[in-house]
């Protein structure tokens, strides 16, 4: 019954494993020499006003260069970061205790895979010992990254997603290095949406939501705030991401004839929803679209049909001269206006500007000190002359708006109050007669 095991092969394996293990150690050591030890630790904390010894700031990030999230890296956050790095370096760098340090980004591809993303983030902090890290993309990734970065005492700002569930963790005090920049459904967007509907006199609403984090959270918050504002939710439907036909859903909503239809979903589902409503000639008084609806390309695809469609956001070229200037600069940098996002684009920039000012104010690269500054200080940014964090979350007053609406192909902020750049169109005009092909981009 004895079978001879090929011991030789097993030895070979373990030798190989040992070799593999030792290789990264050697590489790791080499890495140590190269990037010195000024990183996020507490080594430099006692001499906070002395300029650091290094000549540049390295910021690492595991980004979705490939995979399902690569859209965001390519069109949303990637350009925002790159433009910022370009701007900072054009101005000589970040002033840390009197020394101008240029910024360099070190980007790894996380393949839109969470395991890989966390591994690479760890590598950036532990092996590459970068000075700062930028977050990964998508809310689930942020949730995971928040813990990992905190465990390493690295500041992690997130404009790339965010859900209110994270707030509970923050309230527990577990995430002192985590800063939430993107607007939340509960503090920011749904209250604003309810206010707008209340002002317009809408009485009933239907909600269609994608059965993922974003959709589930938004429909829950919509229920809270819309009911609070006297808007009754007459229909609430969850859809899967792979949905290929929405006609029966739209028809059922049509039968209940609500004033408002909100789609808390992503571009593929939102495009399908728009097409289906146009095809069925169902024209509610207001339509709200989730992520994607705020992109210029979305408006381009549907052309005149976008008139009066609302979206989660928001900012507008009419928000302020700074916003307009940023718009121009970004469009120039990206070579197109198609992928300008009238929800997030300004927040990413504001967050970076805030961060830069926090570093300069702290006068050190020490994460604790910078975090402390971020928690307490107010800075002017492209988004608002008075931008600040409350309990680790951008204060609602810091945003340039929460709900936008497409008017004549231009994104306008329609929040009730002084952020408003244009009066809401309500009810929205009926769909234009279908035209033949219109190219998207």
């Amino acid at each position, binding site marked *: 019954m004895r079978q001879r095991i090929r011991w030789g092969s097993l030895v070979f394996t373990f030798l190989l494993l040992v070799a593999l293990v030792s290789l990264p150690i050697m590489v790791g050591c080499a890495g140590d020499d190269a990037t010195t030890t000024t990183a996020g630790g507490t080594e430099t904390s006692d001499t906070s006003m002395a300029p650091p010894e290094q000549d540049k700031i390295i910021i690492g990030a595991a980004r979705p260069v*490939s*995979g*399902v999230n*690569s*859209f965001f*890296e*390519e*069109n949303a956050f990637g350009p925002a970061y790159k433009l910022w790095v370009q701007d900072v370096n054009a101005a000589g760098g970040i002033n840390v205790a009197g020394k101008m340090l240029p910024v360099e980004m070190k980007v790894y591809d996380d393949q839109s895979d969470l395991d890989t993303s966390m591994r690479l983030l760890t590598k950036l902090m532990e092996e590459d010992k970068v000075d700062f890290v930028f977050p990964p993309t998508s809310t689930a990734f942020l949730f995971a990254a928040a813990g990992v970065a905190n465990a390493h005492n690295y500041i992690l700002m997130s404009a790339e997603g965010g859900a209110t569930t994270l707030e509970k963790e923050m309230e527990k005090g577990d995430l002192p290095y985590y800063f939430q920049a993107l607007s939340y459904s509960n503090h920011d967007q749904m209250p604003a949406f309810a206010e707008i509907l209340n002002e317009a006199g809408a009485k009933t609403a239907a909600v269609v939501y994608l*059965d993922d984090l974003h959709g589930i959270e938004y429909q829950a918050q919509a229920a809270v705030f819309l009911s609070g504002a006297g808007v009754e939710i007459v229909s609430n*439907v*969850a*859809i*899967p991401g*792979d*949905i*290929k*036909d*929405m*006609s*029966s*859903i739209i*028809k*059922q909503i049509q039968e209940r004839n609500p004033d408002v239809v909100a789609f808390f979903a992503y*571009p*593929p589902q939102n*495009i*399908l929803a728009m*097409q*289906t409503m*146009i*095809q*069925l*000639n169902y024209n509610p008084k207001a339509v709200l679209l989730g992520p*994607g609806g705020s992109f210029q*390309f979305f408006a381009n*695809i*549907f*052309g005149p049909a976008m008139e009066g469609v609302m979206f989660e956001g928001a900012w507008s070229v009419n928000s302020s001269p700074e916003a307009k200037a940023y718009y121009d600069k970004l469009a120039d940098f990206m070579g197109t206006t*198609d*992928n300008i996002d009238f929800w997030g684009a300004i927040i990413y920039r504001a967050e970076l500007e805030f961060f830069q000012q926090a570093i300069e104010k702290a006068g050190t690269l020490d994460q604790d000190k910078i975090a402390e500054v971020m928690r307490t200080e107010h800075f002017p940014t492209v988004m608002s002359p008075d931008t600040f964090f409350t309990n680790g979350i951008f204060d609602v007053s810091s945003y340039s708006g929460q709900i936008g609406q497409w008017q004549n192909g231009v994104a306008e902020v329609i929040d009730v109050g002084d952020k408003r750049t244009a009066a809401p169109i309500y009810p929205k005009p009926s769909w234009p007669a*279908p*035209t*033949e*092909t*219109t*190219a*998207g*981009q």
Partner: protein
Amino acid sequence: MNAFRDIFLTGLLLGGIFALVSVGLSLQYGVARVLNVAHGEFIMVGAFITFWMLGSINLNPLVSLVITGPAVFIMGLILHKTLFRRLMDTSPSLDVFEGKSMLASFGLLYVVQNLARIIWGSDVEGYNFLNSTVTAAQIPLNRLVALGFVIVLGVAFYLFLARTRLGKAIRASAQSPTTAELMGVNIHNVLAICFGLGLGLAGIAGSLLSTLFAIQTSIGLGYTVIAMVVVVLGGLGSITGAMIGGVILGLVSSTVTFFQPSLTMIAYYVIFIVLLLSRPKGIMGK
């Protein structure tokens, strides 16, 4: 009654789309014995070629079928002649070949998807095409066109298989490659052509799908999964089976979506698994 009609019509239209997505896969497996996990990637390629030609030379998507089909067909020919032919020659048995070719197609998935990403980027793209309805029944025109194309393609394909010399050779090869060889059929050419045709159909499907849905370089795998469900429903390798399977899945989808949309995917897989267990050879299987 109205609801019933709606469910049926939507299901039928959707079924057409599913059939379109699947027929090519069925052909690739049925004759060339490649369970092509990268099938959906070629749908994506077809969609992007169409989109790109619409943007650059304003070519009507329905016209661009004439280009995407053959272009992807040739890719398929080359792939089979280089990659799968070699795998076939070095595999000791058909089972081994099926396993290896499936894994190789997995590699292909990465290659095609990432090449496409490098060429076309990661944007969500879309355009409005025939976005109106045939008013009486409120049937979306673009879906009707897609269904029409599926029927035309199906009939054309049927005629091709039934009437032409090559078509008969393909059917014969599917039944018994060795005997077909004895008839003078160059089996390697036939297999390559079938693989190519399968991909070509994926390309055409892509062109048509781009008129209906938002496209992105990462959409492929989703369509592969649908195609697999449909092909197993209809019986691996059966063309008519793929058509029928598509319609069945369409009807299932429209029914479930009508009552509880979030259960749609679960319904797909439950049906898929139950069917695999009870009738592994599919509805059309013997």
